[in-house]
């Protein structure tokens, strides 16, 4: 019998206990990884591929104040600007739904590929979308959710504009960072009674990354003392400013995560020290046989560490496998899209598991150090 097999045998002596231990570590770490991944996705939205070359222009007052349509020509004339498209949030409710379940934007279909380039869609669907003013294209996630296909009609009632519209699906796209949205003709919005002459935002494609700061600056300056002052910023900055709107909720979720981890560490550590305390009699026997304290500590640590490591492998492994291979967009009905388990998050969880192994072995180690052989032999399990 080797030391290792002795430790293994000891750890598995009470199989139920060992199983509960490993499972609770696994559940805790699974939860930890899930929360971290969700928080990361909410606070650090995934960056779109062409984002580095896109500038978002909105009214300086706030996003809900519109911009006059005449600004488009002014922006287009700025050197370095490749294309400008209106981009208005429609805020429509689908059929008789209580609330908005996916976003719809009115824009210029001719510039779809130039500005928002990375959507995968058959060529004929692109053409069909451009040709028909009442047409729209829909992301695959939403299309799957409502079992919609090309040719179907999508009735929408706006919560922002005093109108209802019905759009025909000309294409279903995928392969963008957010395959949930619906895009349709801005012209149609104007005609349907949106607010002709006004748009919510301008999305601008810039020719090169080097020209970005200059173009942004130029757009801001162009309307500096007009009745509609604008704020132009990179798509990323625009995204992140939205995240900041979450306010205290973010901090609260963070502190809740901390409490969650603490609770689970506490519970698991107590379970593990209990498992080890059960083993007092053997430890006393070992002491009687001439083992030194140091070696007993090593026994305890190895067992506690082994249980934590096994739990970590199961918990983190399950999370990683699930989030990497299952379609999270489908599972969460499009609330979360990528749900990426980053190496950093795995590292964090592993670190928690390692500290758990150490913390759990502390109490029994101290008790063993104090224990006399006779006393230990008397301990009943």
């Amino acid at each position, binding site marked *: 019998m080797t030391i290792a097999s002795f430790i293994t045998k000891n750890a598995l002596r*009470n199989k*139920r*206990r060992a199983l*509960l*231990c490993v*499972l*609770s570590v696994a*559940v*805790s770490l699974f*939860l930890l990884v*899930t929360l971290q991944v969700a928080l990361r996705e909410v606070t650090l939205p995934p960056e779109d591929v062409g984002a580095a070359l896109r500038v978002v222009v909105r*009214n*300086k*007052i*706030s*996003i*809900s*104040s519109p911009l006059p349509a005449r600004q488009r020509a002014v922006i287009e004339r700025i050197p370095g600007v490749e294309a400008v498209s209106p981009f208005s949030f429609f*805020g429509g*409710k689908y059929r008789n739904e209580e*609330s908005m379940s996916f976003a719809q934007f009115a824009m210029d279909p001719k510039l779809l590929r130039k500005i928002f380039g990375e959507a995968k869609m058959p060529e004929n669907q692109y053409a069909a979308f451009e040709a028909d003013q009442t047409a729209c294209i829909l992301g695959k996630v939403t299309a799957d959710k409502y079992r919609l296909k090309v040719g179907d009609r999508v009735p929408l*009632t*706006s*919560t*922002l504009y*005093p109108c*209802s519209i019905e759009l025909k699906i000309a294409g279903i796209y995928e392969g963008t960072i957010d395959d949930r949205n619906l895009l349709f003709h801005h012209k149609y919005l104007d005609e349907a009674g949106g607010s002709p002459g006004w748009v919510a935002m301008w999305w601008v494609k810039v020719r090169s990354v080097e020209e970005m700061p200059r173009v942004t600056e130029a757009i801001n300056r162009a309307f500096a*003392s007009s*009745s509609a*002052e604008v704020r132009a910023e990179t798509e990323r900055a625009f995204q992140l*400013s939205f995240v*900041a*709107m*979450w*306010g*205290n*909720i973010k901090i*609260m*979720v963070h502190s*809740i995560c901390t*409490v*969650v981890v*603490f*609770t*689970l560490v*506490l*519970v*698991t*550590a*107590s*379970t593990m*020290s*209990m498992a080890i305390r*059960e083993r007092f009699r053997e430890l006393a026997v070992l002491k009687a046989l001439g083992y030194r304290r140091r070696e007993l500590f090593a026994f305890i640590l190895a067992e506690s560490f082994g249980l934590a490591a096994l739990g970590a492998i199961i918990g983190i492994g399950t999370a990683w496998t699930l989030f990497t291979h299952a379609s999270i967009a489908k599972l969460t009905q499009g609330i979360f899209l990528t749900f990426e388990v980053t190496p950093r998050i795995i590292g964090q969880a592993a670190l928690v598991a390692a500290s758990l192994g150490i913390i759990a072995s502390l*109490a029994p180690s101290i008790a063993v150090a104090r224990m006399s052989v006779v006393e230990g032999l008397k301990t*009943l*399990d």
Partner: protein
Amino acid sequence: MALPLRYNLRNVIVRWRATIATILGVALVVAVYILVQSLAVGLEKSSRNTGDSRNVMIVRKGSTAESSSQITREQFQLLQYWPQIARDGRGQPIVSADVVVMVTLPRRESTAEAHVLIRGITPAGMKLRPQVSLVAGRWFVPGRREVVVSQRLAARIANFDVGAQFKTGSHTLTVVGWLDGARSAFDSEVWMDANEARSIYHRDNYSSILARVVNETAGAALASRIESDKRLPLRALPEVQYYSAQTMTAMPIRILGNFLATAMSIGAVFAAMNTLYASVGARTREIGTLRVLGYRRRSILSSFLVEGALLALVGGILGCILSLPMHGYSTGTISFESFSEVIFEFSLTPWLMAKGLIFAVAVGLVGSLLPALRAARLPPIVALNSV
């Protein structure tokens, strides 16, 4: 026949370390559950606290928030003098057409920004909202670019001190006072003169109309008259009802709370299970002895279930106590209706605590079920075998 409780109690004390860990575990689970749910309750409360039962709110059909509602001047003229709307001493209708604009402003404590609602309001509008009071400075003077901001909002937004100035678009506004909304939705607003607001934000239209109606029947009549008038694509409903429906933001918080509670309770169940399994293991001979003395399986089973439930109940009570200091603590997040900053507070109701306790007991029962079954299945003969 049940075993006496002090039997459980003393056993619990003997295994105090595991017991404390279990109790603390359950306590934290319950505290997290209660706190997250109390946020949702607080949000709903702030909506429910808003509104006067004598008032009727009129908004554009289909709009979900005042800031996205539009009412034209013609529409306002049309209904302003309807007989269902109450009149003041001088025969003027008590009605206010407000304009609500969302503006982006920097936060106080960081470089981040927040959306804040500015309400352009008339004197009648202020009379219609008597729960709002001035707590510092003075009210704005019509025709001047002055605002009165909510005191709670001032704690979170930069340049909201009385006397300070802030920029919105190309205009500069001066804060002349602080208001208190008595824990209503108005705690999340900035008030200024209606005409001034329409001029600086280029609004031809109003956002909403608030009217005092003669009585409840008149309110219903007003609603049905608007509904049937083809010229008015509007919707009228009691102000109280309008605000109490604005609770969409509470939903994801509730879901988060339930998710956390479920996931954490699995851990807590494991803890309770372990503690009780250890308890059963250590008491094997005792249990056998009790069986020899004539105690039935059922008694042993219920004794362990009661022990688990009580342990968890103590944890639940501790969890309530732990979360209690957060009661009334004010906080804010983005509203899913108006997309603007909404201020609300943790609100721990007795019902919420009761739910927390029920939840704790459930965790205790589930956690103790398997160990209790194991204990009950022990044959009396173990009393004699295991030494």
